[in-house]
């Protein structure tokens, strides 16, 4: 019993220490913001690898999720003769929930794991130590641009996912199942609220951007510098990010939509 308690206590202390290190790292990264703004090229390079290289999976997923929503929505709504509201259902689902959440989950799988692996490998091959010994702060030079790129990329990717999803729903609903084109768009235009729906969705995706990128960077930076350590960091990035996104989504939804 005592051993069990001691193990539990050690695990608790280790988790608290890790959380503390993660917070200190976040503070240190924000400290690198002025230096990064003086060299925007660093940010642009990371926007490419974090954001642009994630576009394909986001675009393809967005279209298919929208198509599935169109299909499922049509069959359910048509039972009540309400297929005219298909556009609202597709758009509201995407703007409020699926856009930010699925984008964040895909982002964690594609960009987050890549970030953690890259930073972990830089650590294990002493590149970060090398930067320190060249009098270059690796937290500012390597991590800050990646953090900002992740935060900026997420809402843009979520917007792309949502837009393509709406078109995916339109393709199935209007193109294949015969819903009226004008009704699809008009219902969406009249029922989707800028503040209630769109802005809240954007806020969610920004929060998810901060959390997913922070987790990925911390896991890479804090990993044990071995192949096993990097592998664990990559796995943890995806698992922790996914859980954090789903948990935060519930909290944010509860706060935003009462």
């Amino acid at each position, binding site marked *: 019993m005592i051993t069990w308690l001691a193990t539990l206590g050690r695990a608790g202390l280790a988790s608290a220490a890790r959380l503390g290190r993660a917070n200190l790292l976040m503070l240190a990264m924000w400290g690198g913001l002025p230096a990064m703004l003086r060299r925007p090229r660093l940010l642009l390079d990371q926007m490419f690898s974090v954001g642009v290289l994630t576009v394909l999976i986001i675009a393809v997923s967005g279209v298919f999720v929208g198509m599935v929503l169109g299909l499922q929505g049509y069959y359910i709504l048509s039972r009540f003769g309400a297929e005219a509201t298909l556009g609202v259902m597709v758009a509201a689902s995407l703007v409020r929930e699926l856009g930010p959440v699925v984008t964040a989950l895909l982002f964690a799988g594609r960009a987050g794991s890549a970030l953690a692996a890259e930073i972990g490998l830089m650590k294990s*091959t*002493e*590149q970060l*130590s*090398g*930067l*320190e*010994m*060249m*009098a*270059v*702060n690796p937290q500012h030079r390597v991590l800050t641009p990646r953090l900002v790129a992740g935060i900026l990329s997420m809402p843009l990717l979520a917007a792309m996912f949502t837009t393509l999803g709406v078109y995916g729903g339109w393709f199935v609903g209007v193109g294949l199942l015969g819903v009226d084109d004008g009704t699809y768009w008009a219902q969406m235009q009249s029922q989707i609220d800028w503040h209630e729906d769109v802005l809240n969705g954007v806020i969610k995706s920004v929060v998810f951007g901060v959390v997913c990128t922070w987790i990925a960077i911390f896991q890479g930076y804090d990993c044990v510098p071995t192949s096993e350590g990097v592998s664990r960091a990559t796995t943890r990035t995806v698992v922790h990010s996914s859980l954090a996104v789903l948990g935060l989504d519930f909290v944010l939804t509860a706060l935003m939509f009462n």
Partner: protein
Amino acid sequence: MSPNPATTDILVRIRGLRFNRGSKVIFDGVDLDIPRGGVTAIMGPSGTGKTTLLKLIGGQLRPDAGTIEVDGLNVHALSTRDLYRLRIRMGMLFQSGALLTDLSVFDNVAYPLREHTRLNPSMIRKLVLLKLEAVGLRGAHHLMPAQLSGGMARRVAMARAIALDPMMIMYDEPFTGQDPISMGVLVRLIRRLNDAADISSIVVSHDVKETLSIADLAYVISDGRVIEAGSPHKLNASENPSTRQFIDGLPDGPVAFHYGAPALDADLFEDAP
């Protein structure tokens, strides 16, 4: 940041250094002086903390007790800004080379110049090519680190380490895993760069023959302490059993062949857990 005149002949002064990793004692009261202008070798069996010592000198690790002065400055009492200023005057060659894998050879060597100087691109190009020429790799400036052999990667790292004309360079196991030709090249380069650029070199290694062939002064570290110090000639003539075992490469001695374990028969006939 000005050097202390009282320490001008000694570049690195270590006094009473204690450092632990968890419960393991790495250094237990190490005193060590590294003079200016020469090649100082720090040798010892694997796991004695040679690389740790370089990280302590560079301020990447903090000692539990004791002081480390570099050019008269107490490394661990410096502010971050002053520590970074000091590091600009220190070069370090890591065991893996630590080249930035997303940059070409040219950009790796240019990196510290771009970070710490306001030289125009034309001047940076000339300096980079000269540094690469010094290590014999001017023709490889367009290659990526993945295209280099281990020896070439270390020579590029050397060129990067001397890019800002530092007062000292620390070499962490520069000869490990090298073929005889690469090893010979690296040995000669370390000595030549030291003499031509009038810098001080600290070579951490367990390659006895190569290291002693270029060292002016050598320290042997074992069990957290300096067990022998002096010229290579003095070390070769040493009768200290630990030094002799290390220099002659004897499998058994003060550093036991067997890692601590219970008696073999007790271990063999014990029931499996």
